């Protein structure tokens, strides 16, 4: 019983800390609007990919994965580019909107790797 109550206290403690600190909202490009706080943006790489990630920065567009919305957010990214990054891939970047461009934090890009569990889908150009 002591143990159970301690576990319950811990759960509340965790609840508290995760609400109070850390954690970014994870949103899609169409939900970004003009929000200026730090967010995690998940989307589909669309439009031409230009620039150099290790110089002035890589520029590309990011649109919704489900494709229902036509919104495309311009992204500026510097730092490591994962192997799987290219047009048509699902990626996640952290950052915030500045003057209409989503400026990603250096090195924050994650691509979703094609998993052994996922059969090839139509949006996968490979």
């Amino acid at each position, binding site marked *: 019983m*002591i*143990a159970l109550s*301690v*576990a319950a206290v*811990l*759960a509340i403690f*965790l*609840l508290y*800390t*995760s609400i109070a*600190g*850390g*954690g*970014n*909202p*994870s*949103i899609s490009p169409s*939900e970004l609007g003009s929000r200026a706080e730090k967010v*995690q943006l*998940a989307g589909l790489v669309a439009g031409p990919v230009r620039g*150099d*990630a*290790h110089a002035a920065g890589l520029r590309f567009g990011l649109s919704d994965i489900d494709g229902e919305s036509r919104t495309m957010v311009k992204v500026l990214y510097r730092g*490591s*580019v*994962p*192997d*799987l990054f290219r047009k048509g891939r*699902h990626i*996640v970047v*952290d950052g915030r909107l500045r003057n209409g461009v989503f400026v990603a934090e250096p090195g924050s890009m*994650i*691509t*979703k*790797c*094609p*998993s*052994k*569990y*996922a*059969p*090839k*889908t139509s949006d996968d*150009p*490979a």
Partner: protein
Amino acid sequence: MPELGRAALVVTLGLGVYALIAGAAAARLGRRRLALSAQNALIAAFVSTLVAAGVLLTALVRHDFSFSYVARTTSKALPTPYTVSAFWGGQEGSLLLWLLVLTAFGAAAVRLNRGWAKSLVVWVVPVFAAVIVFFSFLLVAVASPFATQVAPADGAGMTPSLQNPYMLAHPPLLYLGYVGLTVPFAFAMGALLSGQLDERWLVATRRFTLFAWTALGIGQLLGSHWAYVEVGWGGYYAWDPVENAALMPWLAATAFLHSVMIQERRGMLRIWNVLLVILAFSLALFGTFLTRSGVVNSIHSFTQSSIGAWFLAFIAISVAVSLALVFWRLPLLRSPTRLESPISREAAFLYNNLLLLALCLTILWGVVYPMLSEAVQGESVVLGRSYYDFFLRIFGLPLLLLMGVGPLIAWRRASLRSLATTFRWPTAVALATGATLLVLGAGSSVPGLVAYTFSAFVLATIVLEFARGTRARKALGATSWPRAFTSLIARNRRRYGGYVVHASIVLLAVGIAGSSAFDSVAEARLERGQSMRIGDYTLVYRSLDERQVSNATEIRATLGVMRGDRDLGTLQAGKNAYTIEQQVSNEVGIRSDRLTGEDLFVIAEQIDPNGTVYFRVFVKPLVNLIWVAGLVFLLGSVIALWPDAREQRRLVSREGEIGVPATS
């Protein structure tokens, strides 16, 4: 052929349903013949699943693309080992592997225990059968590996990143771990149903739990090593939901393996142990669910699949039913003994359990938080690395310290004076180590320094225990020191195997602390002939070569490596461009220092057409201790798992008086 596979699975389902109904009826009504028949049905289910697995394996090896599964996961050009590994490369195949391992464990657990724990096993059979029914139902009705189609000329092939030796061993080991946790769960439920809540169910499942736990641990470490060597981002663990999915049941099982000892010895923590087993089993199911359902944002992308909802329902039902059983048996679960002092071995084990559970809950919270926040606030919030790192320090460091304290402190009640005597030397060693490291500059990371100091403490206690035990055996008449040492381990495998596992966790902690708290990174764009420095290493970019192999173009940059004035030879880093799959993969260059365990880790991040390369270089001190820890962990587990004739005799002789907690 596909008909045979389908039929075999239907037979498995039928046998499962029979074992469930007949087993439950036999246990309820006390029919011995019927109970035996249900047990045999469970064993037969293993045979029929083996037939189904054989059919799929044959189809894979023979490149029979009329099986949709084979066409989807392999191709003719795929090397044979990976053709075999495609068995668990897709959803249906991995479910079949789940079922195969499940029925194998069921058959083994029933056969090994029905002699000495008959009255318990009759109730275990229907529980096991229920889990088998779930999985075989999925395979028959929802996700059949034996779906057929008009055979295409060639299959779709396998993702290049999965074509490496790690994928031969990593997934099956995780499955052994996940599925193995069904055994203690089924026995715990059997104990609740039968009302026989003495420690027999713990004794019957100890080795199964230990085996599953070992497989899960090694499987995860292999996954980490794969990420480190093959994926090439410079790390080995990213707190990704799919990685966490395997870590959570492992932590719960670790807590269970410890608290079990308290129940065996003192009859305490009975409710707690049952709850831990339920937690471990549910987390194993949850882990499988996470990797299948696509509900989490993971670097592994998972398409929405049909079986996610089934899993969620099964988890909900098994948790609800098992908690109801616990509640029902609450009067019988009450411990006859109480905690006597907060400074005792029981208490130390309890603290260890709480910390392990806290860590487990931390991770669970982090995994489900995006979903919960989406449901509550309408917006998914993701908890980042800092969240996990923070709690790993808060809960992990005290856990590390307790690993040295727990095994040495007295049962029931320890006096402060005895504590001072016991821990005098380890404390001195730890303080000396800490002070030395501080002078050497380890103060740059306080958590890292604390981790090192605690590690020295634990290692000192382990060495002390081995030394003390060996000396005692020598005094008792062992002919030589090595013989005294081996007989010490042989006479109490569980205890000394445990110490070896503890030593491996220390190595792991030191490796993690070294590579995460004291690492360094440098990056630069280099033209041929230019060089860069990191720590006391100097790297010179010498040349760039392109090579055409059968399925890819390999580009490699060659770097000369110097450490101080010493020439360490060359290192290659580059990229492979896979032609058919249109995929690029980083091929990192790693130079390990055998003596210090330090790695120089080079990524060629970007290779420009004019031959300049953007390099990202890490120096990771002590990182190789993590992999060494895996070997030591395996050694310790094998020592603890090794069959012990003396223990068997003890069990048999105690069977009469079982239920009375041993005192001493």
